[in-house]
């Protein structure tokens, strides 16, 4: 028996706008409105508005909150100032990635963990299992809606709806209690597209008003709603990883190029021994970016051949900005250098390609490797 799909507070607006809805991580989500490519281009050149309310929000509150989360994740939470956010994996003792998440320091002893929708229940159970009595774990996922306004015109559009100078918020910082279109929200300078932009954490009941106000305020700028399809092609071009595709509990942060989020020198944390060992012993495989010849797409799970060894594709697409067949995949250590030739088996044919440096796309540039 499959459970009924969950709906975000914006579900009615999506269907009314003619969005194509698909099941995603137990939610009925918009995969596209006008079309993935059109939405992708809008975010790169103007702005797009995403409903990502399916993401989970878990509050960790109490005097021991900082020390507790520091022990759960690989990045260094102790460096977080109040109103600052941090990206980090959360690992098993074997250093497998349970999830990748954002940690927001709302107050001295009050953290908000923003987690992937597909993992919210598992994360919550894991966190509760490891919690000490002096922290309180509260699942706020159902009460909080999340809107992502992304693109070069995001700042101008958002500023029209608030008196707070949101341009002063630096990348990976946030402001709580910002009044936007008459509603009080957290405004965070974060995103998953490779563009400038903001994420707005709002009470669920405020979400429809905010959604409509933002689309209205951005209409003249060419702001359009964008779905999960464009979110995926945008994040791939930007070299951002997707948990469940590019990493999971069978891969470590070091293997997928997230070494910068692993702070082996901080106090002990779950997975530290396995990560230290892997760092000493070396990696048996690495996640790299590649570009293929032609336009056929390397899909998740397709075999990679490189240097006589096997690998596999974790993400792939033909993307509008880069205009090439691009992908991410695991390859043996001998194949990680940009320029190395590889091939991906697509429907029985070995399609030649090249390892490239990530990201495929960087703001203000148009090229792939």
């Amino acid at each position, binding site marked *: 028996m499959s459970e009924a799909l969950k709906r975000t507070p914006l579900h009615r607006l999506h269907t009314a706008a003619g969005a194509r809805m698909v099941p995603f991580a137990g939610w009925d989500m918009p995969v*596209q409105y006008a*079309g*993935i490519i059109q939405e992708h281009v809008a975010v790169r050149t103007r702005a797009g508005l995403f409903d990502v309310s399916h993401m989970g929000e878990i509050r960790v509150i109490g005097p021991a909150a900082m020390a507790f989360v520091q022990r759960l994740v690989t990045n260094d939470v102790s460096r977080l100032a109040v109103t600052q956010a941090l990206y980090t994996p959360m690992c098993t003792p074997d250093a497998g990635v349970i999830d990748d998440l954002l940690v927001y320091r709302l107050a001295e002893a009050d953290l908000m963990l923003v987690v992937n929708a597909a993992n919210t229940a598992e994360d919550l159970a894991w966190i509760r299992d490891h919690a000490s009595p002096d922290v309180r774990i509260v699942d706020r996922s159902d009460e909080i809606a999340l809107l992502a306004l992304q693109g070069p015109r995001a700042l101008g559009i958002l500023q029209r709806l608030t008196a707070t100078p949101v341009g002063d918020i630096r990348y990976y910082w946030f402001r709580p209690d910002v009044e936007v279109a008459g509603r009080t929200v957290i405004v965070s300078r974060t995103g998953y597209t490779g563009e400038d932009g903001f994420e707005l954490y709002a009470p669920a009941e405020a979400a429809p008003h905010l959604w409509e106000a933002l689309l209205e305020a951005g209409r003249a700028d060419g702001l359009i709603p964008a779905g999960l*399809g464009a979110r995926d092609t945008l994040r791939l071009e930007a070299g951002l990883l997707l948990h469940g595709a590019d990493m999971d509990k069978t891969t470590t942060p070091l293997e997928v190029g997230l070494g910068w989020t692993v702070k082996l020198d901080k106090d002990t944390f779950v997975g530290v021994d396995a990560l230290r060992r892997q760092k000493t012993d070396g990696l048996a495989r690495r996640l790299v970016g590649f570009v293929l010849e032609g*336009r056929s*797409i390397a899909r998740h799970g397709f075999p990679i051949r490189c240097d006589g060894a096997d690998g596999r594709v974790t993400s792939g697409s*033909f*993307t509008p900005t880069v205009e090439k067949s691009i992908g991410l995949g695991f390859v043996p250590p001998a194949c990680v250098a940009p320029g190395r030739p590889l091939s991906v088996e697509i429907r029985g044919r070995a399609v030649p390609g090249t390892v490239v440096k990530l990201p495929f796309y960087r703001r203000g540039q148009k090229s792939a490797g």
Partner: protein
Amino acid sequence: MYPKELRYSKEHEWAKLEGSRVRVGITKFAADRLSDIVYVELPSVGAEIKFMEPFGVVESVKAVSDLYAPVSGKVVETNAGLADKPEVLNTDPYDAAWMLVVEPSNPAELEQLLDANAYAAHVGEGQS
């Protein structure tokens, strides 16, 4: 939406009899459903295709789909333009985005395909 002069497969290909040859493509319904088509893989000229067996693939950003032959025969022409501009499948599926011209080995197979009304009903759009 579905031109009367074409015959349609339940797999969403169209076939158009042009003298002794058959032109083949995919329907507006298929193109809309795939959305954002970025790649088309067609057989070479001279290849034999078989009725209702896959002859190629079409890829959109999100998915890959097989193409099924609405008639058996020898491929005598392919639309090379689709290699660089597969997006015309989304904008002009019945004209600029034709895929193959086939010399049919059994033109009677076309009788097994749907007419425009039956196809519209098949895709749940009723009378067009």
